[in-house]
């Protein structure tokens, strides 16, 4: 197929960029990443679905773990932020925060452009998928964070704050873009006499609603809310009283890591089902789901380095910029861009990009970060 050639060229460019000598180090990182329980649980989930095995995670357990993970990320983020704040004020934070916001605005646009002009997809589908890739996946963050901690290069303490910042702008920009361009297209067609633009007003009100829903969605509310709670409690509570909360939520702790295993198992089960849709979405979207993250990851790593993040921080920022949302984005897209086929966006985000990032992407971003000189 025509468009997949571009993919190959991108790959070649990437290889040139990272340099052949990096390869063995990437492989080593890969091994260190792949043979750990978290990606292996994901793999187990995929295998189970493919052989029609009987593992069934109750969806309430899945939701509960999601809630716990988001609360943890927020709470520990707030706790670390408080320490950072006490030590350095906002000096170390504002640059990475700006960089993150900038990336949140750029990635939906790069995604849209690639999908619309390289992939020749419809406006609605392009915007819908761009909304997913402009946002972020909290679980990819959690896995990336585990990886850098296991590699003895923990990320800067304020990374959870950046995750929170990255969640919304991408979705908002992509949806507004999609709604505006669709409206223009419809207006053009209506002028040409083909369709009456009846449902215009309904659409605008839905866009506003959807944007509000994204901004007050579960992920943001829990992460930002617990961030504030973690921050305040750290400042005002004495350490002994704070201890049990810290142990419960801490991201290096057994609860977080264990919950992540179960969560990834379920993600594997779901991704396994989606694998069958890969044929439907076609080779372009599969290539997109691999190369777009690599490019976005590189953006993330580089901007992170410029903003002064450490090695772990650059890796994690790369991973979250590269990741695609599959929780906050889908309902918002479904409501505002009904013509967009959700099979495309969700299969790409969940059955291509997510596994790619978990298995290969994170170690690659780590090597990218070393390559750009982060420490």
């Amino acid at each position, binding site marked *: 197929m025509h468009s997949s050639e571009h993919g190959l060229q991108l790959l070649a460019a990437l290889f040139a960029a990272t340099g052949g000598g990096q390869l063995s180090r990437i492989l080593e990182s890969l091994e260190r990443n792949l043979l750990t329980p978290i990606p292996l649980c994901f793999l187990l989930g995929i295998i189970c679905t493919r052989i029609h095995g009987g593992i069934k995670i109750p969806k309430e357990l899945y939701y509960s773990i999601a809630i716990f993970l988001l609360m943890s990320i927020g709470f520990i983020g707030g706790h670390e932020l408080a320490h950072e704040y006490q030590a350095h004020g906002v000096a170390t934070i504002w640059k990475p925060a700006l960089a993150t916001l900038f990336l949140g605005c750029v990635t939906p646009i790069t995604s849209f452009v690639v999908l619309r002009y390289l992939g020749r997809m419809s406006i609605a589908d392009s915007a819908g998928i761009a909304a997913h890739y402009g946002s972020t996946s909290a679980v990819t963050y959690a896995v990336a964070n585990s990886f850098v901690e296991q590699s003895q290069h923990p990320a800067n303490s304020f990374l959870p704050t950046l995750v929170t910042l990255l969640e919304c702008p991408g979705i908002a920009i992509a949806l507004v873009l999609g709604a505006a361009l669709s409206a223009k297209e419809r207006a053009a067609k209506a002028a040409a006499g083909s369709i009456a633009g009846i449902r215009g007003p309904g659409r605008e009100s839905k866009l506003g609603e959807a944007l509000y829903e994204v901004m007050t969605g579960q992920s943001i509310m829990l992460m930002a809310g617990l961030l504030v709670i973690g921050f305040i409690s750290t400042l005002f509570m004495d350490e002994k009283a704070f201890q049990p909360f810290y142990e419960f939520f801490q991201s290096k702790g057994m609860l977080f890591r264990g919950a992540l295993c179960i969560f990834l198992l379920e993600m594997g089960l779901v991704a396994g089902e989606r694998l069958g849709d890969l044929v439907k979405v076609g080779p372009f979207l599969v290539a997109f789901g691999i190369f777009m993250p690599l490019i976005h990851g590189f953006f993330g790593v580089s901007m992170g380095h410029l903003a002064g993040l450490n090695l772990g921080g650059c890796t994690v920022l790369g991973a979250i910029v590269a990741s695609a949302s*599959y929780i906050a984005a889908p309902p918002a897209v479904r409501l505002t861009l009904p013509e967009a086929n959700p099979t495309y966006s969700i299969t790409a985000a969940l059955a291509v990009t997510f596994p790619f990032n978990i298995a290969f992407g994170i170690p690659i971003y780590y090597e990218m970060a070393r390559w750009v000189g982060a420490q």
Partner: protein
Amino acid sequence: MQLYPLKLVTVVGESVIMEDIAERGIKLGASGYTLVDVTGHGARSTRNVSMSGGARTQKIEFVVSGEVAVDILSYVSHQYFEHYACIAWLSDVSVVRGDQYVKPGGR
């Protein structure tokens, strides 16, 4: 016992549209509705992606007068049949003390 002939409107479809349908049903004159989580399979069900944490299917029922029933069905079919996975049907029911489910100024 007094039974009133009324209509039962049932809509099954993506959960993402149900809140709006419920609100609209009330605006069009329904005194209430009953909602339940289901799973399902249909012609367009690829649309209704079965991911955890993502789209779900729901079934909503309204007990209403014939006119309100038609209004709700029209709304649903115009607004949602094209792009969303859903199905809607109507059946006859006899309702106890059914007069209270016919709002005078419903429309």
